[in-house]
């Protein structure tokens, strides 16, 4: 890799190897924008003037690597120092090049006024102010992504509001400096709605006597477990992103895992490729914003649960499922057990949802979770006890 590329990236970061998006205050982001503009002007006014290209971190899978934790078993993906260039000189990229600067200008104004905008509002603004360059929402989204990659900060730091669908419940007390204490165990089946504002989530203080953190893929399962008040029988914190995890939910989970580092994080997902993909996102982070991994263990559904489920609860894999499965298996970062499960799904051609456990009644889900926790976490202890009881006459 050339030296020039390294220098190019070192405008903002000292550590070139590890590229992650930061949550930054508005003044810092504006400062970075000003630096990039000054850099641009420097190139233009230099003795041999030229229009520099934008070095954006390549946000693709071939630029990701897997880093094994030294002290713990947490692996995380990171974006390496490979860059792609956006250049004004190439006709096809010229407009995309300009779009990044236009988006930067608007975000600068937004941050100056201390406001936040949604991506749709950005679209309408840019549509009206620069109609030659912006004609669709997709172009705005791409420009924002490029800006994130250029400035190494999160989208929210640019002043773009993020929503979160996540919810949290269980044995956790949240202390918000402004609103006071929120006890998540008495909030009802919807739980505490996780705010999309990462700054707010950063300020929360946690108190908990839970022994596990359980991550749910689906809202229906979350609500069932909350209604059954499972956290009173199995002291735990329940968290869900209601599908594919958004940044705020992952951020909160990461904070919880750091705060309560002894607590195992267990995931309950459907037995299908999408469920495995969600699991991997929690575990490793995401390629487009590779950061904040958590050591998430796959509690269920697993293939070992299948024999006890009715055959009619199984559905066929769709074409989309197979697509997701192929793309997951093509990544060298996929752990062995996950790969084996995906292969079994493909071989059987079937997928199973968590609700299949209801065939034994609504109350069975809680018992299933308890059984699995014993099996997954305490299996070694059980084996020792069993061997001891066998050896004593």
């Amino acid at each position, binding site marked *: 890799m050339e030296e020039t590329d390294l220098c190019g990236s070192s405008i903002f970061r000292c550590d070139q190897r590890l590229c992650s998006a930061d949550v930054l205050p508005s003044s810092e982001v504006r400062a970075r924008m000003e630096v990039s503009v000054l850099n641009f002007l420097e190139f233009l006014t230099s003795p041999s003037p030229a229009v520099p290209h934008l070095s954006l971190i390549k946000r693709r899978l071939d630029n990701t690597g897997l880093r094994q934790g030294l002290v713990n078993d947490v692996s995380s993906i990171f974006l390496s120092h490979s860059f792609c260039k956006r250049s004004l000189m190439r006709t096809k990229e010229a407009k995309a090049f300009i779009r990044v600067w236009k988006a930067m200008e608007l975000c600068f104004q937004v941050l100056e006024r201390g*406001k936040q905008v949604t991506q749709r509002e950005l679209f309408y603004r840019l549509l009206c102010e620069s109609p030659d360059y912006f004609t669709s929402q997709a172009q705005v989204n791409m420009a924002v992504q490029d800006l994130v990659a250029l400035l190494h900060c999160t989208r929210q730091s640019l002043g773009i509001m993020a*929503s979160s669908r996540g919810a949290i419940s269980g044995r956790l007390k949240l202390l918000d400096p402004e*609103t006071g204490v929120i006890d998540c165990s008495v909030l009802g*089946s919807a739980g505490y709605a996780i705010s999309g504002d990462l700054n707010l989530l950063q300020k929360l203080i946690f108190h908990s006597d839970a022994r596990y953190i359980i991550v749910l893929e689906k809202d229906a399962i979350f609500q*069932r477990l909350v209604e059954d008040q499972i956290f009173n029988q199995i002291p735990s914190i329940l968290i869900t992103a209601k599908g594919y995890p958004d940044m705020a939910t992952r951020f909160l989970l990461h904070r919880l895992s750091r705060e309560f580092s002894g607590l195992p994080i267990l995931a309950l997902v459907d037995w299908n490729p999408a469920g495995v993909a969600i699991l991997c996102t929690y575990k490793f982070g995401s390629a487009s914003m590779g950061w904040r991994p958590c050591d998430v263990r796959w509690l269920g559904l697993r293939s070992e649960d299948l024999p006890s489920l009715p055959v009619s609860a199984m559905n066929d894999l769709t074409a989309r499922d197979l697509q997701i499965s192929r793309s997951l298996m093509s990544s060298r970062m996929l752990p062995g057990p996950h790969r084996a499960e995906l292969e079994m799904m493909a071989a059987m051609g079937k997928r199973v949802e968590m*609700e299949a456990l209801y*065939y034994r009644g*609504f109350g069975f889900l809680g018992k299933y979770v308890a059984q699995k926790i014993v099996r997954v976490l305490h299996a070694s202890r059980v084996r020792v006890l069993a061997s001891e009881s066998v050896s004593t006459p």
Partner: protein
Amino acid sequence: MAGRSSGSKAPEVLSKIRGIVRSLVVDLCNKRLPSVVLDRYRRIAWIHPVIGTYFSWKEAISFYKESHAQRLDIMLRVLRIIQQLLQENRHGSKRDIYYMHPSVFLEQKVVDQAIKDICILLQCSRHNLNVVPVGKGLLMGWVRFTDGDRRFDCIRSPNTAYPVPVHVEDVEDLFSVAQYVLVVEKETVFQRLANDKFCEKNQCVVITGRGYPDVSTRRFLKRLVENLCLPVYCLVDCDPYGLDILMTYRFGSMQMAFDASLMCVPEVRWLGVFPSDHEKYSLPDRCLLPLSPEDRMKAGAMLQRCYLQKKAPDWRLELEKMLQDGVKCEIEALSVASFSFLSEEYIPGKIQGGVHI
């Protein structure tokens, strides 16, 4: 086990279930083929039950026909599950019920049909059977209530979003000093209002159903209106889908005709966005997006709805204008001039000026 009451109707529903099963058993003992009689509503000539009359006939389901026998079997199974839910004070969704006997039910719509039949048979609403969907509404603002044994005090932090309670019948001690209720279609608009601290400057309650509102959101809105007697203003995009959502709040959805009288909120007023707003507020023409073919089809279908002419002729006129102009306008387009235009000028201006239909 959830320690909440499912309202006062549970014992009534349970005794009705027992009554039906007893009559079937009596039939069998007297060597008669058991049958169940349902009221059916004809959809074509259907006029909203609240407004006018409906055309109905009675359908008897019995073991005479083989297809009916299967329907009866499925209905009885679902009835058994519902009885369990009511006795154990639990709630389940339609999907959960399907998964209890997937080999018998075979398809989700079979369960949905059985539940509709049972609602008609027992003359009650789905939530009385403890069959509730997963809630997705959000609210914020000047309201306080107790949900079961939890106290929600949205007044202390008026810009924080709270989920709309799913079991609306458990909501008690509803207290508010708000002057009106604002219903918004989209979550992003809700966020915009939260970000602008709208509820701090305006004494109101803001609710969103995040698109098409679910049953709990609509019921909660109705509860708010009935208990607090507040005006309700609705802010939707100026496109056929936005108007459809507006009509769902006001008239109820076509799918659930039987429950409509319990969930429709006739007091809903359309605050915006009107097709005429883009001229009035000098929005650039580029903000108006053309109607797609699907939009046009939807608008055409909506114009056929019988209640529109009778009960909301102003809305019908605006929909016709939209179709004529061939353009739609989203709420976010109002932020073009200034990001806080929506919360500082548009909404308060319209409410104070009484510009709503």
